């Protein structure tokens, strides 16, 4: 009966929609940023927003400067590689003065939760002080340590842990407190 077939296909469509929704997962790392819409398409397609990158845009910052610097275990000292990235960040921020910058520090080194919180704050503070020394107005920046919250992922192997010892520079159009 045609009516029944129509109903069945609608039911099937609804079931497929549910199945699609169930597949949607949120990466742990996405807590650094609001979770993005589930991605469709194929590997090697341009990522959303990166189809054509405008100078001075957030995409330009991500692609041509880089948001992340890394630290040695139990250290908040900026090494020469971190300073080289921060030099590029400072130059970019000085060329694009309308952006504000939120510096998020992370740590999952050895020690208690409160020690990690302190270490991550020291990392973010050291980063902010360095950017200020390179001419970025301190009023454009704020720094916060998240300890071992918001890890790239919870892990034990070295290649994963090195990812968690970091400061991420997030461009912002206005101040937020998250």
């Amino acid at each position, binding site marked *: 009966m045609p009516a029944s077939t129509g109903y069945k296909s609608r039911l099937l469509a609804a079931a497929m929609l549910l199945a699609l929704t169930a597949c949607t997962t949120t990466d742990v*790392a996405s807590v650094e940023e609001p979770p993005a819409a589930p991605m469709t398409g194929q590997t090697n397609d341009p990522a959303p927003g990166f189809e054509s990158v405008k100078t001075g845009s957030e995409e330009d910052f991500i692609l041509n400067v880089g948001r992340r610097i890394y630290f040695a275990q139990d250290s908040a000292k900026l090494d020469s590689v971190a300073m080289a990235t921060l030099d590029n960040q400072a130059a970019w921020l000085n060329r694009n003065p309308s952006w504000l910058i939120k510096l998020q520090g992370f740590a999952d080194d050895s020690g208690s939760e409160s020690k990690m919180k302190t270490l991550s704050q020291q990392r973010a503070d050291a980063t902010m002080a360095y950017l200020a020394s390179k001419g970025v107005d301190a009023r454009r920046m704020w720094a916060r340590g998240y300890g071992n919250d918001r890890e790239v992922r919870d892990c034990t192997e070295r290649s994963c842990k090195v990812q968690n010892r970091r400061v991420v520079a997030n461009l912002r159009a206005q101040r937020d407190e998250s």
Partner: protein
Amino acid sequence: MEWTRRNILLGGLALLGAGAFQKPVYAQASSYFAGTAVDNGVTFRVTNFAKIDKQWHRQVVKYFSSEPIGTVVVDTRHHFLYLIMENKTAIRYGVGVGRDGFKWFGRATIDAKSLWPLWTPPPEMRKRHPELPESVAGGSPKNPLGPRAMYLHRDGVDTGYRFHGTLEPWSIGKDASSGCIRMFNEDAIDLYQRCPIGTAVQVLPHIADQAPPVTEVNAVE
């Protein structure tokens, strides 16, 4: 000696390499560079990206896999190197794959990296080109490693596999006669900044599935 297809292929590549070495492509080279820049005190020629096919430019692409964030994936077959980022994206770099880039595949970590590294031509290359010196100083305009090298180790042992820069930007996107994974010098500098010591790397199999095991692979470049 057992002759495999790979040996014959490599022999052919070596001959091609010898030809290229004796006849530098000066006319071609000039338009592949646009001015100079200074990096850590070394003046080098800047790649003229207007001359380079867009697909080899550094770009952010979708990347669907379960590889963790921060992992480097090398696809030698398609001449791409990916650095995995959040939300199913990756920074993609075009690469040239030298024959040593096909000698090995698998998982490793970047355990060492250097600025303007010294280049020691491997013995078999010096046999083909006796005019080559024992080593070429870091920062020399004749040093094929360019501004950066990243060294892949596995369980603390050097695999002989490296990412490095190039003197020949036109070779990006192609198979090359020598070297491992070569990148535009600007990209080698960029990747160096983004990969802390300990970064996980996966090199996908290409003709490396016919290659000798890791223990037989000598350090090259």
